[in-house]
């Protein structure tokens, strides 16, 4: 069982390594979206630090959704998704493996870019630390719920936009707790409450979404 999960994750990592272009576009998308806001809101550091949490988190949502629409699409197009569904292992592990692989490929780098952008938004040190922590705990939610959306919209025309329409409302709790953690630190209130709620939401999605995504895959592949 576990070997199959690790095989799926290693497979996706290898594929992503072979096609660095996709990976880079998603990271640059994140950076560019975030950099647009100061141009729109104005350079005043006090204002920027207040909106930093929200801006970075919304950009993380959009970057995740951008890369998720291709989570199953490439495998579906060349038939390898069918082969993986025909392996003796339950499809839940496939859905979980793909989601975790997506988190490692597209979620973790957001963590590393966030501090640079945090400085750009005049965030103090501790706020940047909490931002990274909230992204660490929050990005799995993006990949897990997103994998459900990707499975549901497999092979549909307008898949990317449809995926966003379906899944963005489900991201709201993660956005509120994640961005709230940064604001709480700025306000000196301390972000433990936000982070623990975010972690609870992450665990819940971890338990629910692989099953739903696997069922969605079986339905979409038929």
């Amino acid at each position: 069982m576990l070997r199959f999960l690790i095989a799926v994750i290693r497979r996706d990592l290898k594929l992503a390594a072979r096609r660095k272009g996709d990976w880079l576009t998603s990271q640059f998308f994140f950076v560019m979206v975030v950099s647009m806001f100061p141009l729109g809101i104005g350079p005043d550091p006090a204002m920027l630090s207040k909106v930093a949490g929200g801006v970075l988190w919304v950009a993380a949502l959009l970057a995740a959704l951008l890369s998720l629409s291709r989570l199953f699409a490439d495998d579906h197009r060349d038939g390898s998704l069918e082969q993986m569904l025909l392996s003796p292992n339950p499809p839940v592990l496939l859905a979980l493996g793909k989601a975790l692989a997506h988190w490692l490929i597209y979620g973790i780098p957001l963590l590393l870019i966030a501090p640079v952008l945090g400085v750009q938004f005049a965030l103090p040190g501790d706020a940047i630390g909490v931002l990274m922590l909230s992204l660490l705990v929050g990005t799995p939610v993006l990949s897990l719920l997103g994998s459900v959306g990707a499975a549901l919209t497999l092979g549909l025309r307008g898949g990317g936009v449809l995926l966003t329409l379906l899944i963005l409302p489900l991201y709201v709790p993660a956005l509120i707790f994640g961005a709230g953690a940064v604001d709480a630190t700025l306000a000196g209130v301390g972000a433990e409450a936000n982070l623990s709620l975010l972690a609870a939401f992450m665990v819940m999605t971890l338990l629910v979404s692989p099953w739903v995504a696997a069922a969605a895959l079986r339905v979409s592949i038929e």
Partner: protein
Amino acid sequence: MSDTAAVLSVHDLACARGERTLFTGMNFSLGQGQLLLVQGGNGRGKTSLLRLLTGLAHPLAGEIRWRGRALADGRELFHREMAYLGHLNGIKDELTPVENLRLAGDLEGMPMDQATAERALTDIGLARCLDLPCRVLSFGQRRRVALAGLVASGSLLWILDEPLTGLDVHGVAMVEGLLRDHVGAGGMVVMTTHQPLALDGLAVVPLLVGPALTRPEPGNQEEPACCAS
């Protein structure tokens, strides 16, 4: 063919695509060392039948049993002993043929080392392009990579949907050889094809899906099935 040896058995199977019922009340069974040749016009449900047999699709009615147990509850055992080759090859273009084979082995739970993968590929005539990404290979060569994976998987039941498409004369001869070896060694095959196959001496079980295809005389071109009510 006594029923007891039947490893794969289908009981009044019905299949629909969208709202159109393709076929109903289909019964057959297949034992080891047999090849089921599925024939019928376009759009009659040949591919749908094969997808039902793999368990990817669900039938409208009826049941498919593997070693006496329904697919739904014996899924893991069935998928361990079955391999499917559809219209798509199921290989990744970025990876080399060897990587594809070893990856398929990992996912099936039977890891394959470098040497076995290379031998499987050279046996099937891909010795020269072992370390090229599949992207650069021709469709026929990629088909051979998929076939090499099929053979290397060591599955008892092969489900092949038009395996000969895109293969040159040598390819077709090679596939016929593979089928003969597999079925001869007690393996089972369910396949569809429009090209004539030289499978003399093998236990071929024909199965017709939909009305028989009359030899189209110049006058009456049989109306394509998709528009029939």
